[in-house]
């Protein structure tokens, strides 16, 4: 489904600040894979996401999604087939526009069949209402309200809905529950699981919660210094404990996982 082949990316090349974030990075995802990704700060997790989403073009290598070479496809065109969520709930929605208008924008990703001069129809509204009611947050009765009035958790749930409204080929979740309180985070994780399973979306999720990393999905990457140092799935994964994971990390990188947040959770 997703192939990164020998992808390299260096920031600020030729300066004292040069930082090689990815070097000869290769990864293959099967259709329907749900990969959780853990790794210390600066391991290249977000850089990998940015490379896939097209925030920048990589120095070398090839990125393929569903057989299509997207290495040099601009970000806004990739977003038609790639859904993405960030840690910051403010990033995914337009605050001064209403819930309804935000959803209409997300709908644009389906591309075909929309005249740029068409308005939101009643049929669209009906569909938005149905989808919103799936979130179980009562947002379907607040469709005319500006998104800026929603709480962080509500905004993140709405962003999830928007990112998956037109089923993407790939969903990138960058610690999308890290800024939420535990209860809301659970709710958003539940919704994520439901939506991903129901629509059979290939998904990658960065998390700092080790327990979550092993519980959700079917595959886990441990990343360090721009490389996947441990890639586990199937039976081996189901037997893994958090301590195993820490050991694997030490074995793979020769150093302990240096992230307090991760150990505590």
């Amino acid at each position, binding site marked *: 489904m997703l192939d990164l082949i020998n992808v390299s990316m260096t920031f600020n090349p030729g300066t004292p600040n040069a930082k090689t974030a990815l070097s000869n990075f290769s990864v293959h995802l099967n259709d329907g894979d749900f990969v959780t990704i853990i790794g210390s700060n600066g391991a290249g997790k977000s850089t990998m996401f940015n490379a896939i989403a097209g925030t920048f073009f990589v120095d070398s290598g090839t990125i393929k999604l569903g057989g299509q070479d997207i290495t040099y496809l601009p970000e*806004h065109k990739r977003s038609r087939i790639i859904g993405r969520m960030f840690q910051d709930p403010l990033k995914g929605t337009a605050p001064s*526009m209403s819930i309804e208008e935000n959803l209409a924008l997300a709908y644009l990703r389906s591309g075909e069949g929309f005249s*740029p*001069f068409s308005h939101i129809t009643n049929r669209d509204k009906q569909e938005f209402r149905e989808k919103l009611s799936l979130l179980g947050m009562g947002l379907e009765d607040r469709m005319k309200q500006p998104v800026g009035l929603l709480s962080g958790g509500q905004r993140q749930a709405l962003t999830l809905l928007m*990112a998956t409204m037109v089923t993407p080929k790939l969903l990138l979740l960058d610690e999308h529950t890290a800024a939420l309180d535990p209860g809301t985070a659970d709710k958003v994780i539940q919704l994520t699981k439901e939506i991903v399973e129901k629509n059979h979306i290939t998904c990658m999720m960065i998390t700092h919660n080790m327990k979550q990393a092993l519980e959700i999905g079917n595959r886990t990457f441990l990343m360090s210094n721009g490389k996947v140092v441990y890639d586990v799935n199937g039976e081996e994964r189901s037997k893994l404990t958090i301590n195993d994971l820490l050991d694997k990390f030490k074995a793979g990188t020769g150093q302990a996982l240096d992230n307090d947040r991760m150990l505590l959770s």
Partner: protein
Amino acid sequence: MLYILKTALELGFLYAMVPIALFISYRVLDIADLTTDGCFVLGAAVSVMMARAGHPILGIPLAMLAGACAGFVTAFLHTKLKVPSILSGIITNTGLYTINLMVMGWSSNQSLLKQSTIFSLLKNGLKNSKAKAFVTLADWYAVILSGIIVVVFALLILAFLGTRLGLSIRATGDNLDMVRASSINPSFTITVGLCIANAMTALSGAMVGQYQKTVDINSGTGIVVIGLACLIIGETIIGRRPFFKGIIAAIIGSIVYRVIYAVVLYTKVLPVEFLKLITAIVVALAIAFPAIRKWFAFQGKKISHANGKGGKDNA
């Protein structure tokens, strides 16, 4: 009094497209577009020159087209060549000075003498009409025509902002990250927005040019600040939310500004030359208002904090 009101309505409607344009660029797209001054003169120049050539009506859409081109240049500099938006506007504005002279046949002003304008056409039409009601309306021809044009374009823009393309443009000014993630090309939406905004500015220039029967190379100076003042006055009166109030605010603000202008002009409480300075101060204060309020709140906090300590430090 009626005369003051009439003048204010006339000028208010004639200039109302400028605050509407600024509503699109400054409020919706969140870009301070300084193309406005030169673009206004460009619209006036094109429309007056067309009227001189005997095509007053055709002059209006052509002026808007010219304005859209000016907006396109600014947008191109900003989106493709990554020039900061304010600088893009200033660069285009500077270039437009020469373009405007060129349009005006390398002369710094041009006048219409006996040639008909859209206003004279309507005035004569009303005067010669058989219905008596129309004849009495003939005195208000400028208010009627500019009012209709402004209302029609305001409605068109409102309808447009509700379309999918319009929503994309609004989102561009609201959350750029989200726009990219929604498969919208922000360069495209900024370009469309700036073209529309500058077409509206040029429309205003085109109407003013034919109404005053003259165009001067410097007639656009300060138009952007006056437009902002109108927008802010209007928003203070009728509010900013929901967003479509902004367009109504632009029109109301423009009329209120011209009422103030007319009152100053006729009562002579101040020399008219002061108006630009006052306008500048009003705009600066209005935009600075949140910062000023914060500063006062902070000072208040400091004072109450000092008092709370019981003056121990000072004693």
